């Protein structure tokens, strides 16, 4: 299937989409947002200076129609979500979001009901649009760099007034081999200090459940779950997290989950490899002590 990737210039995100394109048997082209030097080798590469998805729909739709792309791949991120729906209407193309499995026979799988079920679909019409959930496909290694040609600007109904990158304290969740997350069970914002202390000792990233973010104890950028960060660490410590299916959907690819929760019936223990049924205030200080002694 002749494939176009639309993505921000981020080697890992692009690499994951290249992997999916290869499953469908194609070496994809790319439309990159924001920069003309793209990691990886592409036959055709385009870029736009404008990084506001709402301003790219018309240009992208024209490009897809002119070049006859059969498949458009996006990450299931803010950018991918903003492009997928409007682009689908422009192209009259079916769209499946949050894809977690893809096969050469053009079937794809996506979770529903917070990951409690999975639905498999067959793609029969082209062009088709897929958004791919992060961390489910090993990113293809980017060989070299491709210089992209500018895509003609179309109308720009939305203006970017300002932009601020999240300041990551410690290890970014994206790259963390170990992640320690706190949930509503922590009881207060200041108790995240304990989580940060053990994270420093384990060189771990610090995450949070939606409940902790809603309480205002953690920044939204720390949220892990279906609608937050999708992560795939080697070890994931869930501290005071009940384990709602929406949270578990964000850690489906964690190799080992350690749950600390005083409620023995908490759902998190169904996903955990190791469980400690105890107040985290008793457990985490002893873990910190044990790590310091090593």
């Amino acid at each position, binding site marked *: 299937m002749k494939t176009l990737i639309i993505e921000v210039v981020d080697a890992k995100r692009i690499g994951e989409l290249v992997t999916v394109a290869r499953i469908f048997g194609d070496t994809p082209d790319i439309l990159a947002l924001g920069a003309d030097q793209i990691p990886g080798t592409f036959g055709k590469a385009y870029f736009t200076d404008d990084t506001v998805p709402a301003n790219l729909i018309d240009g992208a739709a024209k490009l897809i129609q002119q070049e006859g792309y059969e498949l458009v791949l996006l990450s299931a991120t803010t950018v991918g979500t903003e492009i997928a729906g409007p682009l689908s209407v422009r192209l009259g193309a079916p769209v499946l979001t949050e894809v977690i499995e893809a096969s050469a026979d053009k079937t794809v799988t996506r979770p529903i009901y917070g990951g409690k079920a999975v639905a498999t679909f067959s793609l029969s019409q082209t062009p088709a649009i897929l958004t791919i959930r992060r961390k489910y496909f090993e990113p293809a290694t980017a060989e070299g760099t491709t210089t992209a040609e500018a895509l003609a600007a179309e109308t720009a109904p939305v203006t970017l007034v300002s932009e601020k990158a999240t300041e990551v304290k410690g290890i970014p969740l994206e790259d963390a081999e170990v992640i320690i997350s706190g949930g509503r069970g922590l009881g207060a914002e200041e108790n995240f200090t304990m989580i940060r202390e053990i994270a420093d000792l384990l060189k771990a990233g610090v995450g949070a459940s939606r409940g902790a973010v809603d309480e205002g104890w953690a920044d939204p950028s720390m949220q892990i779950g279906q609608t937050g960060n999708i992560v795939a660490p080697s070890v994931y410590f869930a501290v005071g997290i009940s384990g709602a299916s*929406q949270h578990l959907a964000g850690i489906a690819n964690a190799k080992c989950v350690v749950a600390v929760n005083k409620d023995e019936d908490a759902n998190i223990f169904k996903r*955990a490899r190791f469980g400690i049924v105890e107040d985290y205030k008793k457990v985490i200080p002893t873990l910190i002590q044990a790590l310091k002694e090593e």
Partner: protein
Amino acid sequence: MHIAVLAKVVPDYEVPASDFELTDGRAHSRYKRMIGLYDENAIETAVQLKEKNGATLTIISYGSTNDIAVLRKAIAMGGDALYLVMGDSDDPYVIAANLKMAIEKLGDVDLVLAGQQSADMDRGLVHGLLAGMLDTPFISQVSHINADSDQWTVSQIHEDGTRELSFTGKAVLSITSIPENVPRIPVVRAIFAAKKKPVEKIEGIAAEPMTVEQKSVEIPTVESVCEFLPLDDIAETSKILLSKLREERYL
């Protein structure tokens, strides 16, 4: 100012995986019905916008008359009226086309808000399709909205940070959850008042569904293999845990 909030009634999203059952590829009908997780954040955001700027707030839903009792909560939170488009499709194109029809019927809607994704199909798609059909901009993961005469300025939370974006005219915005838009719990007086607010039921329209074939829906089998560590001496428990994590090469 007329704000429309899209709200979907979904099966209880807090049912744990171990109790989850399907019938005909969809959640069993025995589960309690409720307003979608993020739709309530969208309603709260709209109510705050109404309180600040003065606005009419219409809740629009696509579903069955049985949903009205559930949707009364949205009215009690601060909505002025409920507009229910009756239909039973779960195809995103059909739903978006019906919502478009409802918005056009209302005529003077300035801004459409919706939760960032439903809590059943988890597609996060219908609002984007609707924006495409209405030919208006679509901005997702919006946390704050400010109105200044005919210009809107919104804050967006994305994976790498935040953005402030502005536009004039109509748009469809998907709303994310932040501490400031945790849904309010309606007071008893508001619940009673909601029973008197107008509910308009309109017949859904036939629309072309999306051309993909659903092959199967399954509940993945998850084997629980949790090893509960002893609790007699917590200091020892911590040491055991670290040693096991290293033994199995996780750390």
